[in-house]
């Protein structure tokens, strides 16, 4: 893995973000909402509006506005929210932190469950266990988050009353309550991940188990376990790294709904609120931050993959 490759990938991230920023800016600029009106509220007077428009440079040509905006963004200034009047970037990053917490817990749970499931399914291929796993994974993949979420709330929170239905408590404030509030969202998010990844692990492992070198290993007299854990697994798990990275993309999308339903003030929920309130700076910041997270996740995944899999000659 040459430095040139890494540099290339970093340049790509840059390009990605440029494109994303263009798209996001374009969309937000044509959203049916007058930024000035949004800020001053419905009782604003025309003169006040005009003054604000001038101040915000809303009368400049679009591309000018874009450049100004981009310049500001590059200095980490996304402007301040039209709803609360607070600077957007800090709020969004804080929200991102909460989302990442959710994501990390979900990925953790996924790794703990998905990989064993996948292995069992692959090893017991075609038998009950396999069918069971693939049935579950089909359910998981096919249930939209909002369905899963509503059902777990209905059952675990309202009927059994084991866990709080929604809300968020910082772990720093009260770890126990914080965790209790995280359980349902994490369950919801990880269900789909587990379904997806266990399927991946299974199919990868099945392929590997049919490969020549596994047969060779068996014919060298190694036991099934040795072959599985020493020879097969690493080869099967490698590709799943990339899958997980791609799933981060899904995660970011999925958290939008999940956070909305569980009132978890992560970046997804912030975005929905922002979108519903036409809070343009927040939308722009949120979308860009999401894209960045995704791009970085993939970058890390590629690097990790390359590092783990010596075969691949990157450049």
């Amino acid at each position: 893995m040459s430095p040139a490759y890494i540099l290339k990938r970093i340049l790509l991230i840059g390009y990605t973000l440029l494109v994303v920023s263009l798209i996001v800016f374009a969309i937000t600029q044509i959203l049916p909402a007058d930024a000035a009106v949004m800020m001053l509220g419905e009782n604003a007077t025309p003169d006040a509006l005009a003054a604000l428009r001038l101040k915000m440079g809303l009368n400049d040509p679009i591309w000018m506005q874009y450049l100004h905006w981009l310049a500001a963004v590059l200095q980490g200034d996304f402007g301040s929210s039209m709803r609360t009047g607070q600077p957007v970037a800090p709020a969004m990053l804080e929200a991102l932190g909460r989302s990442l917490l959710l994501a990390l817990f979900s990925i953790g749970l996924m790794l703990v469950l998905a990989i064993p499931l996948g292995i069992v399914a692959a090893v017991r291929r075609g038998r009950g266990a396999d069918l069971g796993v693939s049935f579950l994974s089909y359910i998981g993949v096919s249930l939209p988050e909002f369905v899963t979420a509503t059902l777990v709330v209905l059952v675990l929170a309202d009927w059994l009353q084991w866990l709080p239905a929604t809300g968020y408590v910082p772990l720093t404030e009260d770890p126990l309550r914080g965790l209790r509030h995280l359980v349902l969202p994490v369950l919801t998010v990880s269900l789909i991940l587990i379904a997806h990844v266990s399927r991946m692990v299974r199919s990868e492992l099945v392929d590997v188990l049919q490969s020549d070198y596994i047969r060779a290993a068996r014919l060298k007299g190694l036991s099934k376990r040795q072959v599985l854990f020493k020879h097969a697994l690493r080869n099967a798990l490698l590709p799943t790294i990339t899958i997980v990275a791609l799933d981060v993309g899904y995660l970011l999308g999925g958290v939008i709904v999940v956070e909305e339903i569980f009132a978890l003030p992560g970046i997804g929920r912030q975005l929905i609120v922002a979108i519903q309130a036409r809070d343009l700076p927040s939308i722009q910041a949120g979308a860009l931050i999401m894209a960045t997270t995704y791009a970085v996740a993939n970058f890390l995944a590629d690097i990790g993959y390359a590092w783990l899999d010596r075969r691949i000659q990157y450049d």
Partner: protein
Amino acid sequence: MPSIHRRDFLAASAAFGGLGLTGLPAFAQTTPRRGGTLRVSVDQAVSKLNPLVTRVNPEYLVAELLYSGLTRLKVDMSAEPDLAESWTNSPDLTEWTFVLRKGLTFHDGQPCTAADVVATFEAILDAKTASPARQNVGPISKVAARDDSTVVFTLSAPFADLPVTLAYTNAKIVPASVIKGGLEKLDRQAIGTGPFKLVSFEPERQIIVVRNEAYYDKARPYLDKVEVVVFPDVSAEASALIAGDTDLISTTPPTEFGRLQKASGIKALRVPSGQFCNVNFGCDQKPFNDVRVRQALALTVDRAAMVDFVTEGFGSPGNDTPLSPAYRFHAELPAKQADIAKAKALLAEAGYPKGLEATLIASDRPGQRTQLAVALREMAKPAGFDIKVETMPHATYLDQVWKKGSFYVGFYNMQATADAIFSLLYTSNAAWNETRWNNAAFDKLVFEARATVDETKRRALYAEAQKLMYAEVPSIIPAFFDLLGGQRDWVEGYQLHPRGAVFRLDFVSLGAKAPKRG
């Protein structure tokens, strides 16, 4: 039940002038326990902290904890002293004098004087501040300080309700210095004279306040601390109360009320109110500029069913006038009945024999708006109305439809006085003239009423006004909501306020069984 409200107004104010010193609530039998943390939940983010520009109930709730006005609203909708200990008025009702309590201080320690009051009201009346109070505090033409503790309001017209209108949710006193320095300062911090001081402010999550030791009333507040928790999901909000995570729900939708009634350890709260969901007509443009069309649509509404659909039965049918029985000047009029045949006829008369197409716009918050729209759509079908329902995010609605649209669903809290609701929505110079009904006769009645002191005369005038609306239907008001809420048994001294925007949490205390909270 309206009888409680019946009290001669000037007598009332004079009486309070005397009583004001103690300011003890009438209903507090035993002296309430001091201390404890109350966790109250709200169903929307508290994004505005500046009391002059707050717009939704949760924001009012917080503003009320942190700030005080000259007067405040009692549960019976009459005014009681707040910062002002007494007031008097000139016989012609155009000049009002308010006397402030002694030794008032803001949270930052500086004294609160007449100067601050004057500055505040000038700010409110300044269009640039964009305060909703501007059109709701009454016809004030001039505010002046006679001395440090006396403020004189000069009105542009005789106005009897001033002490009540001054209790308006946005008419909270803020320091003159802040106003000079720029009101943005109040976006993040609170410098008021209210019973509580701000500790932390997270608009989307929770607001924490603690007792203001320097509050003018040494007895109140009873609570050490109030945590306002934001629950964007109403059913989660109810679950939280049932689970005991919260102590009090300020308002809960009918869909959740049933659970609260069933749950143990919870007192479900309900009070009839003037809060309503209505269908606004743009009376200045086709097709609704034709009164017959409006009447026709009104005739299609099965109001009993509507009460079920929109309020789940926790409400009362409306007669297309905004004054519910909860209002002091409510006039008894024959309940409107659905009459499809008559509606058809009227519609044909108005030139729509083949029926009429229209798009009814409803914002998605609160859910009742859409429910009303969809229900109306079905009810109106047989009469030949083909209504297309369009829902949109609240922000878009405010931006594009509100006050501009010609056919959309509105949603309003009860106002303190008949005059307030009329001049907020229906007079030609209404702050939010949604219907552009612009009915001269109506304006005249309302204007006369506000200058009339004599109870019976006033009642007659308002009755006339209501008859006009009953007949001309500037907007369909099919049902009034009872306000619903819930509290744990250990919460004492809380009364659901029909106004919907008033909470009086400084009168609330926690019983012995209340859980200890940090």
